[in-house]
């Protein structure tokens, strides 16, 4: 496996204006993606995911650092680099003046595909994405899920080596989301390199081979989803929604079998606080936890014992829930 994409010490600072200060969107980000890999950039809104994608696709000019796609520096050789990448953007920017099939054939023409080839490829992609019966419709008349499939089809028209997807399932209903997941999985199996940004943990967990969790323009952790979850203390998560007059977290932390207690900043209704206990489940652990709560004259609203998810990793790393 060789690196098809290398991001080296990437920095992007948007210059300030008189009314707003400069924004350091990306601060010294480095990672490498192997050919054929499904790579995820996970993080909350404003973490720097889209800016990173922008730098890779030449739409954002890096302040410093380098992005190399298939051996080509995207700032020095943008035209050649652009032939190798394709983008499914966050905002659906389909050409509203063309029909669905024309969106594909013209995209092929922009990339210099001969007429016969672009027509054949457009028809094949329309069939694959189940859009053949919409070939003459206007893109904006399609549902969100169909538009998203058309965006993927458009991206595949010029046979890219790397497909970048920016929050591809945002705003899709569950069926459309699953269908898109299937499509992406199929493309991955066919050997395409995929890089996806998302703030849906489940999505990253299901699809990505490696995940970089980023926030405030920096990578907090980069590994396979399994390894990230394994790195959590304990191995199980006990989720408590609790309300008590006295501080309860230190007492819980001193219990045997409780490795760490994290306060999640979200406070539920009626002053309930959410605590996440990283536990090594042993006999009687739940009893002891309940005793502590009762001893502090507290109320318990909700208890659940779960396998850690990527969201737990995220909360563990940042001490907060994903910002919506």
């Amino acid at each position, binding site marked *: 496996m060789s690196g098809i994409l290398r991001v080296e010490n990437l920095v992007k600072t*948007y210059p300030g204006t008189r009314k707003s200060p400069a924004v350091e969107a990306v601060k010294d980000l480095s990672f490498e993606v192997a050919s054929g890999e499904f790579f995820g950039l996970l993080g909350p809104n404003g973490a720097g995911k889209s800016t990173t994608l*922008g730098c890779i*696709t*030449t*739409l*954002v*000019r890096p302040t410093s650092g380098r992005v190399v796609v298939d051996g080509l520096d995207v700032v020095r050789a*943008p*035209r*050649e680099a*652009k*032939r190798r*990448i*394709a*983008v499914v*953007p966050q*905002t*659906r*920017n*389909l*050409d*509203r*003046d*063309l029909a669905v099939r024309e969106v594909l054939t*013209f*995209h092929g*023409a*922009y*990339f*210099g595909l001969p007429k016969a080839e672009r027509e054949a490829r457009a028809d094949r992609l329309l069939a694959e994405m189940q859009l053949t019966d919409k070939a003459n419709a206007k893109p904006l008349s399609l549902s969100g899920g169909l538009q998203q499939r058309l965006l993927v089809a*458009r991206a595949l028209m010029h046979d890219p080596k790397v497909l970048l997807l920016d929050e591809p399932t945002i705003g899709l209903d569950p069926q459309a989301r699953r269908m898109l997941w299937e499509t992406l999985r199929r493309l991955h199996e066919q050997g395409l390199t995929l890089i996806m940004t998302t703030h849906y943990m489940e999505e990253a967990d299901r699809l990505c081979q490696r995940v970089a969790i980023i926030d405030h323009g920096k990578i907090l952790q980069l590994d396979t989803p399994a390894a990230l979850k394994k790195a959590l203390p304990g191995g199980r998560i006990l989720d408590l929604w609790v309300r008590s007059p006295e501080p309860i977290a230190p007492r819980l932390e001193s219990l045997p079998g409780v490795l760490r207690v994290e306060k999640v900043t979200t406070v539920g209704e009626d002053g309930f606080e959410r605590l996440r206990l990283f536990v090594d489940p042993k006999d009687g652990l739940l009893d002891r936890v309940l005793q502590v709560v009762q001893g502090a004259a507290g109320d318990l609203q909700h208890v659940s014992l779960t396998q850690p998810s990527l969201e737990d990793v995220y909360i563990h790393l940042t001490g907060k829930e994903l910002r919506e």
Partner: protein
Amino acid sequence: MTAFLALLRRDLKVASRNALPLLMATLTQPILVVLVFGNILPRLHLVADEFRTVMVPGLMSITMLMAGVQGVLMPLTVDLSGSREVDERLLAPISVFAVALEKVVAGAIHAAVAGLVALPAMMFLMHRVTGVEVHPQLGVLLPLVALCGLLSAAFGLTIGSQVQPRFSGLLFAVILGPMMLFGCAYYPWAGLAVIGPLQYVFLLNPLVFMSESMRLAVTPDVPHMPLPLLVAGTVGFVALFTVLGARSFEKRTIL
């Protein structure tokens, strides 16, 4: 070059589908002006006879200016809107400058077609009025129409990529309105000698070169600037606005 031509083909295809509304938008004004100032008022003896001849090339140049500016401005507004349709173009294997240049060429074709349709339309509306001395010299008309089209579209790109879409109404009132009145559309530039050295201030208005170009090409008997000066002025403005426009287009699109 392939991507450039494909983008141009796309723009012309979309424009040709909307040809009727586009032509109506650009031709209504000159046709009505001709009807009133070239037909009704002369019959009422309220304007001088020479005015009919003088305004034909002027209205052609105004038509081209409006068509060129709108031909760039309207698609650009869609491109730079929230959905960022322009990103697809920027991701094509082509430089940002070439994407901007393609917009100028597409707008120029729009402007040239509008100008070449306006001329016979105006001549037809005035055909019963005697004393109109319009003699199109096709050999110089076509290249000059092409140059003037480029100038209109490059100017459209410059203002379109600098002005926020919500101010486009203001743009027409504050920039294009005065340009048209002071653009030598309704009087030949040579006649401005009566106002002294101020005559030369008018040369800052690119429309002056367009009106005088059309004057040379369709009403050669009316005084007009010499050809070398016209070509130099027009080409100079085309180069200036193409560079300025492409630069601000890049600023707007690449963060």
